[in-house]
């Protein structure tokens, strides 16, 4: 197992190298002059030249790329052209925000989706099944920006029970930074009022993403549960007189969870770089917002840093999914 994981980690390197090249090529194709973006709008031609030279932007692209990779190999993600802060430091600030949203979303999606899928599969064709199928079409088909607006109208506009955007209220003091995830930090520091405020801000964006997530997870669980219930081993289990509950829990569900795991992995991967819209709508200062401003300010090191970290997490999640497979299904062994 250990050597398998090591080999998989090694295989990530060429992919990351490819992603870094693609990002570097793309960002350098962006219309505009990164030196001007860095020097500011009122820079004189002379200042512009200085900035260009200082940042190495006057060198040929392959040289610039090699310089970037050389620094990266030493663990240096470079400095943002516009904020002049270390990209690694800014990522440490923005990544936990996206992670918080992602974890909350996945907890809701999994805790609602899997039980719903099992419940409906074991009551096939009856009303809970039909109701869920209806919900799943709505959940998967709703544009997230539209769901977000609807939830904002209802809960923040009409009912006024939840904040419309942001991570914390204006008068709330942010918790001390341990992880960067506000809810966790507030919990660790024992600041209950801050925790409550952070949770209240988390509800709407997480719910927006979780509606689609729960629909997808539930659909796949239902589908693979139905398939599992058709299998010979389920018939055998029933024939030897096991109670129906045991058949579902011990025999059908573990097999049905394999495709569900894949879908959860895919969702995490998608959300990681796909929260741009939600972060925009809910003023959630995370990776998505950071990427959005980076792209439009021609901030090459920022875009490089974000894609590299998002891709790394994506590849690790994929590896995690495969390892979970091996745990769920003893027939799968990795050498």
């Amino acid at each position: 197992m250990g050597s398998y994981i090591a080999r998989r980690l090694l295989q990530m390197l060429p992919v990351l190298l490819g992603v870094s090249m693609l990002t570097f090529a793309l960002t350098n194709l962006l219309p505009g002059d990164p030196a001007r973006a860095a020097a500011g709008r009122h820079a004189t031609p002379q200042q512009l030249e200085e900035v260009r030279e200082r940042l190495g932007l006057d060198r040929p692209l392959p040289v610039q790329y090699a310089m970037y990779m050389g620094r990266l190999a030493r663990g240096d993600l470079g400095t943002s052209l516009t904020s002049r802060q270390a990209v690694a430091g800014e990522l440490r600030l923005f990544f936990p925000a996206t992670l918080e949203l992602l974890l909350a979303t996945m907890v809701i999606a999994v805790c609602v989706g899997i039980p719903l899928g099992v419940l409906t599969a074991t009551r096939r064709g009856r009303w809970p099944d039909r109701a869920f199928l209806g919900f799943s079409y709505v959940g998967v088909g709703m544009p997230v920006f539209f769901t977000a607006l609807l939830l904002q109208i209802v809960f923040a506009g009409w009912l006024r029970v939840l904040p419309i955007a942001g991570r914390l209220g204006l008068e709330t003091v942010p918790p001390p930074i341990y992880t960067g995830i506000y809810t966790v930090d507030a919990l660790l520091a024992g600041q209950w009022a801050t925790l409550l405020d952070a949770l209240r801000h988390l509800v709407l964006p997480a719910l927006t993403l979780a509606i689609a997530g729960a629909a997808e997870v539930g659909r796949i669980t239902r589908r693979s549960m139905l398939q599992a219930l058709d299998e010979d081993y389920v018939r055998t289990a029933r024939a030897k007189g096991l109670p129906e509950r045991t058949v579902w829990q011990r025999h059908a569900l573990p097999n049905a969870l394999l495709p569900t795991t894949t879908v959860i992995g895919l969702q995490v991967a998608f959300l990681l770089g796909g929260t741009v819209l939600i972060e925009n709508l809910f003023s959630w200062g995370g990776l998505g917002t950071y990427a959005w401003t980076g792209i439009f300010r021609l901030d090459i090191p920022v875009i490089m840093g974000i894609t590299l970290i998002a891709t790394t997490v994506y590849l690790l999640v994929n590896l995690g999914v495969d390892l979970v497979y091996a745990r769920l299904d003893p027939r799968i062994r990795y050498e």
Partner: protein
Amino acid sequence: MSSALFRGHDGRLVAGIAIVGLFATMAVAPGLFTSLDPAGLNLEGRLMPPSPAHWLGTDATGNDVFTRIVYGARTTLGTVIAVLAIASLVGIAIGSASGYVGGWLDSLLMRTTDVFLAFPPLILALATNAVLGRGLRQTVIAVAVLWWPAYARLVRGQILAMRRQEFVESARVIGASRIRIIRHMLPNVIDPIIVRASIDAGFVALTAASLSFLGLGAQPPTPEWGRMVAEGQTFLLDQWWVAAFPGVALFILVVGFNLIGEALGDRLTQPWRGSGAAVAGLATENT
């Protein structure tokens, strides 16, 4: 061949085709649904609530929301068709080369798809769109960049599975050229591609609308649903109809696509349902 996919009764398929068909009619002949101008300027009649004259209300420029939704169908459906056409054509070219030629070319092409698949999708689309500039055509390309690797892998899998089949062996024996053999194999790839495209269509529509919502994509005055929702965002609490109805239109279209995609997908993976037996032989691995 492909007709076998659509034979037999399935409520989802009928409902899905009815929905998509309705929007397709709007796209082809908007004049059948409305006689108003989708992109005029009428500041006196702006932000009017739904009424018999404007039954989905008017927007900030005084245009009839219903009319703009009707004309917007063309933008969205056109985008979806263009994206899927580009993605599947590129996929066929790369996938068949990769699967049939094999060797280093296969490794190179498949590692390339790995890179594209591992790239955070929305960031890739945003960056590509930003590189190409704002506009509908640019958004089509940006979204197609996200989808071609899936088709390349699908086609490659199908070609690999076919390589040892009799008709390919015989073609090889009589000395047919590589290109010619691949041409014999390609018709068998069509059904899986249609199914895959029908499953993807809804998601393509959502992605393109998201980019437009963010301000890329079709530029005003071209009606586009994602953009219309974004424009209505400012008046959300008081003039809710400006943002709500384009969102609902997009939602209904996506549900229509998903119904078709699900029905066709089942036929490929569960051929005993419906009459998909003809395509069952093709439901091999598509990694």
